């Protein structure tokens, strides 16, 4: 008992979370810069963006939205399970979250392969023959969904590490801040997709 108190006295729970939030702010500004580029070019080339967006599949985008929203749910529930001491259930939920991330990426792979097969990728002859606005649209599409995809991969890796900590007992119902911080990152990745989906797939 006394052991535990000494250990927790050296641990700053609020500080740990504060640090994570500060990092998330830098992520918001990173994507914010790209959203700014998108907003400016869309306002300058509204019709081109409209035409280019017809090439994207709303269904694929919607499926990926549902996948990421569900993965956020399993992430949040895994924290509840961990804190209730249901370690195995938490591990299952963390695994499902990683699998949702994988499903998102597989979906994305087929989507990108489809575009590349049609000859639409940065600097491709087919794309360069199109209007200026369409070239910008697909440039932003590849950069923004690509950067978001990298974040999904990093998020999956972080959850996998926390998962191994949970299995070893380093992360437990008494020490759950690592899982919470991994969750914060994962939810932020979800939020970014919440904006990417309507801005790229639902332009009318």
């Amino acid at each position, binding site marked *: 008992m006394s052991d535990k108190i000494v250990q*927790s006295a050296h641990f700053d729970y609020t500080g740990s979370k504060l640090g994570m*939030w500060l990092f998330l702010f830098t992520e918001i500004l990173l994507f914010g810069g790209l959203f700014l580029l998108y907003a400016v070019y869309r306002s300058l080339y509204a019709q081109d963006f409209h035409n280019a967006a017809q090439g994207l599949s709303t269904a694929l985008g919607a499926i990926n939205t549902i996948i990421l929203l569900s993965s*956020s749910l399993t992430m949040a529930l895994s924290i509840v399970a961990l804190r209730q001491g249901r370690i195995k259930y938490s591990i299952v939920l963390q695994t499902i979250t990683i699998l949702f991330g994988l499903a998102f990426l597989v979906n994305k792979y087929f989507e990108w392969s489809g575009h590349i097969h049609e000859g639409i990728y940065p600097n491709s002859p087919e794309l360069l023959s199109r209007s200026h606005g369409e070239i910008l649209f697909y440039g932003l599409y590849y950069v923004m969904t690509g950067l978001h995809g990298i974040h999904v991969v990093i998020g999956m890796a972080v959850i996998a590490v926390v998962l191994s900590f949970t299995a070893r007992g380093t992360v437990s119902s008494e020490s759950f801040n690592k899982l919470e911080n991994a969750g914060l990152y994962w939810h932020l990745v979800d939020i970014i997709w919440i904006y990417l989906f309507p801005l790229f797939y639902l332009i*009318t």
Partner: protein
Amino acid sequence: MEEQIVHLGRTKTYMTVWLSLLALTTITITAAGMHLGRFSTLTAILIASTKASLVLWYFMHLKYERRLFKLMFLIPIATLTVIIGLTFFDIWYR
């Protein structure tokens, strides 16, 4: 030592939030199909921001954090607003 009571989220709340997020996704897709013209972008952004707020407030636990976290979150939002606002002043009135 400062006692730290950390709020435990409830499964029922999370399920409700998840269902609301799915419903809002359906709404934004339906709204995009209705061709609202110049309001379509505004509608899409408003729905996306509602979804983002739900994720922030409940999934990311901001509702239960101390005030410092809530106030701090305004900093990146204000920064982005200023940057985007000033850029559009330049684009529209150049």
